[in-house]
């Protein structure tokens, strides 16, 4: 009996390792038509070779395990950052189920979004009726303050015109004429989720700021997070701004939405940037975006208002320094002693751990801005970037990253693999091994295959809890990054020195 102790019930992690099931697995093989185990083993070995790597890198049509998603995912992440906003995705309905599941698995929070549920007939006749009904229904059921519309690839391929559809829906009374329905075309066959964030953010700002331009500025600094999946980062930005006494508007502030308190009552729209504040962004003093490549069009829009925009990536010590100095320069506010003390503590922490990181070879992958932030940090602690895979890369980004790598002797040996995927990364890790790598949960397959220790940083993180609550920004964020990285390395060292009378000579108590 495999389940032989009711006081200690075995689930899948133990149950299937009992004899009964091991026999079952062995017996099932006769029906499977599988390969000879030797052939499997040989093939597995072959995939670790340079020869395989070359074949792998020669592919032109196939993508395997990419590190990117599609536009509307980013669009709806931007949308839920605004007060009372319901994301509305025009097109096939399955996409919305996927987006909601994806975000919910990462944040472990509710995520609301609706679809216009277009089907075959809409594919033929267009989705105008779906839009009309969809807007009316979601407006009446979910009582949003704003509905932010984006598209799936189905609606894009058939060429539905959002502007015309929304106007027609308003004319029919689906929603009041003055009700904000910003929109963005977000074709999944262009760019990635970060492009979608940009498009939706621009669409929302275009809609809300219309006719709101004043003679004088409101003295505020606008912040734009970008496709940000660390709640802690939004909170850290606000904390720093508050410490400095800065008047600011954090646009698309989804920190409350994606981390709401459990009070026993469900609120569909917790927190978010007030629509009036977002509308007033057009009168801001300046805008700071924390990501460049998810805010390209948005920053162009803001520049067209005659407002200066800056990109700051407050990752690591210098990245945070630059951000604080930029804030200080823009507002005339001094950097408070408290932040100076935090900086000192973070630097102290970095020096405490640096010896474990110095010269360590590291691979990583993720969105362009995440990768630049990580690079800033890794170079500061003397780790050596080796393989950098960015599936949703572009030339501008690669030039920026190259310049950053070249600014440090520790970055000289890095290769940027733009447009590549995690199956390429697998070849890289086998042929040119590194000491550890950084990636999202999908990286765990690389960990299993190559035994390279993984530090989970990025999106999505499904298989570890609460990492997204922490900051990677600011001096506090630097300590978090350091903690995750150095302790992964030390854990690995212990794992490698744990065999009694063999490797445990180095199983040190003090590290």
């Amino acid at each position, binding site marked *: 009996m495999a*389940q032989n102790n*009711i006081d200690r019930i075995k*689930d*899948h992690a133990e*149950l*299937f390792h009992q004899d009964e*099931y091991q026999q*079952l697995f062995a*017996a*099932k093989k006769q*029906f499977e*038509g599988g390969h000879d185990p030797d052939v*499997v083993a040989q*093939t*597995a070995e072959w995939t670790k070779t340079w020869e395989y790597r070359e*074949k792998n890198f020669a*592919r*032109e*049509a*196939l*993508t*395997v*395990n*990419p590190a*990117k*998603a*599609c536009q509307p995912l980013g669009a709806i992440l931007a949308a839920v950052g605004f007060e009372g906003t319901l994301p509305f995705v025009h097109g*096939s*309905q399955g*996409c919305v*189920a996927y*987006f*909601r*599941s*994806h975000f*919910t698995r990462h944040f*472990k929070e*509710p995520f*609301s979004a609706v679809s*216009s*549920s277009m089907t075959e007939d809409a*594919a033929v006749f267009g989705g105008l009726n779906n839009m009309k*009904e969809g*807007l*009316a*229904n979601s*407006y*009446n*059921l979910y009582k949003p303050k704003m509905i932010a519309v984006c598209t799936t*690839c189905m609606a894009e391929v058939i060429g539905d015109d959002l502007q015309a559809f929304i106007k027609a829906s308003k004319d029919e009374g689906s929603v009041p004429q003055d009700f904000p329905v910003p929109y963005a075309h977000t074709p*999944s*066959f262009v760019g990635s989720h970060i492009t979608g964030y940009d498009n939706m953010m621009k669409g929302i700002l275009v809609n809300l700021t219309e006719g709101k331009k004043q003679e004088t500025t409101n003295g505020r600094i606008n912040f734009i997070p970008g496709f940000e999946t660390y709640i802690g980062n939004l909170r850290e930005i606000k904390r720093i701004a508050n410490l400095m006494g800065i008047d600011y508007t954090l646009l698309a502030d989804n920190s409350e939405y994606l981390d709401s308190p*459990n*009070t*026993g*009552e*469900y609120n569909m729209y917790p927190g978010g940037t007030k629509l009036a504040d977002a509308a007033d962004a057009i009168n801001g003093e300046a805008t700071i975006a924390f990501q460049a490549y998810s805010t390209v069009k948005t920053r162009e829009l803001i520049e067209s208002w005659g407002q200066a925009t800056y990109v700051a990536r407050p990752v690591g010590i210098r990245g945070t320094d630059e951000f604080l100095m930029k804030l200080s320069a823009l507002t005339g506010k001094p950097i408070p002693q408290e932040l100076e003390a935090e900086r000192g503590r973070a630097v102290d922490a970095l020096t405490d751990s640096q010896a474990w990181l110095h010269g360590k070879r590291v691979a990583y992958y993720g969105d362009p801005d995440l990768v630049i932030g990580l690079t800033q940090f890794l170079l500061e602690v003397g780790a050596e970037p080796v393989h950098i895979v960015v599936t949703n890369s572009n030339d501008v980004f690669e030039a920026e990253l190259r310049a950053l790598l070249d600014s440090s002797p520790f970055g000289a040996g890095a290769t940027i693999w733009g447009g590549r995927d995690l*199956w390429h990364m697998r070849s890289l890790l086998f042929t040119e091994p590194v000491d550890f790598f950084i990636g999202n949960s999908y990286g765990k397959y690389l960990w*299993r*295959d190559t035994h390279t220790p993984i530090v989970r940083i990025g999106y999505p993180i499904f298989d570890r809890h609460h990492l997204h609550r922490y900051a990677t920004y600011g001096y506090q964020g630097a300590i978090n990054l350091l903690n995750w990285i150095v302790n992964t390395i030390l854990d690995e060292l212990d794992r490698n020195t744990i065999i009694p009378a063999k490797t445990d000579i180095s199983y040190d108590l003090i590290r």
Partner: protein
Amino acid sequence: MTPLESQTLDTNPVTAKKELIQEVLAAYPDKAKKKREKHLNVYEAGKSDCGVKSNIKSVPGSMTTRGCAYAGSKGVVWGPIKDMIHISHGPVGCGYYSWSGRRNYYIGTTGIDSFGTMQFTSDFQERDIVFGGDKKLAKLITEIEELFPLNRGISIQSECPIGLIGDDIEAVAKKAAKEIGKTVVPVRCEGFRGVSQSLGHHIANDSVRDWVFPQYDKEKKAGNIPEGTPYDVAIIGDYNIGGDAWSSRILLEEIGLRVVAQWSGDGTLHEMVNTPSVKLNLVHCYRSMNYISRHMEEAYGIPWLEYNFFGPTQIAQSLRTIAARFDETIQANAEAVIAKYEAQTKAVIEKYRPRLEGKTVALMVGGLRPRHVVPAFHDLGMTLVGTGYEFGHNDDYKRTTHYVEHGTLIYDDVSAYEFEEFIKKLKPDLVASGIKEKYVFQKMALPFRQMHSWDYSGPYHGYDGFAIFARDMDMALNSPTWDLIGTPWKQD
């Protein structure tokens, strides 16, 4: 306090719940209200169905929980076939979101002879939309062959654009199959087809009929299919979530049957090809696999039987029903197996039933579990107050009548709004639904278990699974964290 709240729901469950439905519907605009009205009802004892319409287009903007045909084909039916490579053909998203989400366990070396937790995509760009993707697809298949030589075949899972831009994936598949000498299955499961995952299941079933079974026919003709035994069966419609198919298979083998195929959890192409040689198809998920079962009945004369391995009552009944289709040896074995597990079952119930007795549960799952898991809750002394399917059909609601009691609220393709309102009024002790619902109800301080993924636990099928199911329901309901909600300085 509304009139509804002032009366208890128990005095006249049917009337009260019908009033509740009307109250909830009041929020809809008229047109949508008329549509949704047909999908909500209360089961009345003696009726042959649940009184709801189903398998109809979702109401736009209602926040349906439904997915699409691609999710039904790639995500459910084809994806778990472990030794084939399933191409998410089209833009990058669909494959990304459905990558490793469903916990279809399998044994194999991923990336070498098994590919279940990988994402293969043609990552369509604008030029592919404009110029068509057939050339890219053909090239991609040759690249797969080069890099993953041990694959046993390839399936092409169409995403929305494919059908809209007029690509001919069937032609590509035929040509590629010849070139690589392997099975290549084109599947027209574009997300805009049909009203839910359900059509995707059907399309996937049909693609097996059209692109896999001809191989059986050919081999049979050539005399290459071994006769098999009188006890050959296939498990149809078990996706091996958390290992469900294994904790089911073990029982079927223990009663002396020979399970030659699993559809499709931990399944292989070879198993699929050989399935028409079985004596009986055992169908767990009727909704997603009845089509191919019916086809095998018509084309090969193979009978099929629905069974339910959730909870000891249904397991025992199912084992006896299955055994009755075989000889006395098997029937005696079935009794012996039921007896063998009696002590284990008794221990589980003795331990957990007192902790769960009288608790109520509301369900909302896909196409099978809204009825199938009810007896397992009953085995633990729990009662059902509401249930409904994301994508059930009329025949599912007919079958549901055998599982639910008079006065049970029934909701088909329930919207987020309806579900929240129903739950607020029904106040079940446990909600059992999906990931999109989980945190909504937990924010309401309601215990919740995922009935799609088993909340990363499982298996739940079979006797071994029932023990885990009981443990998990107790864990959800009796978590000490529920008592922490609400501050001690603001208690009403």
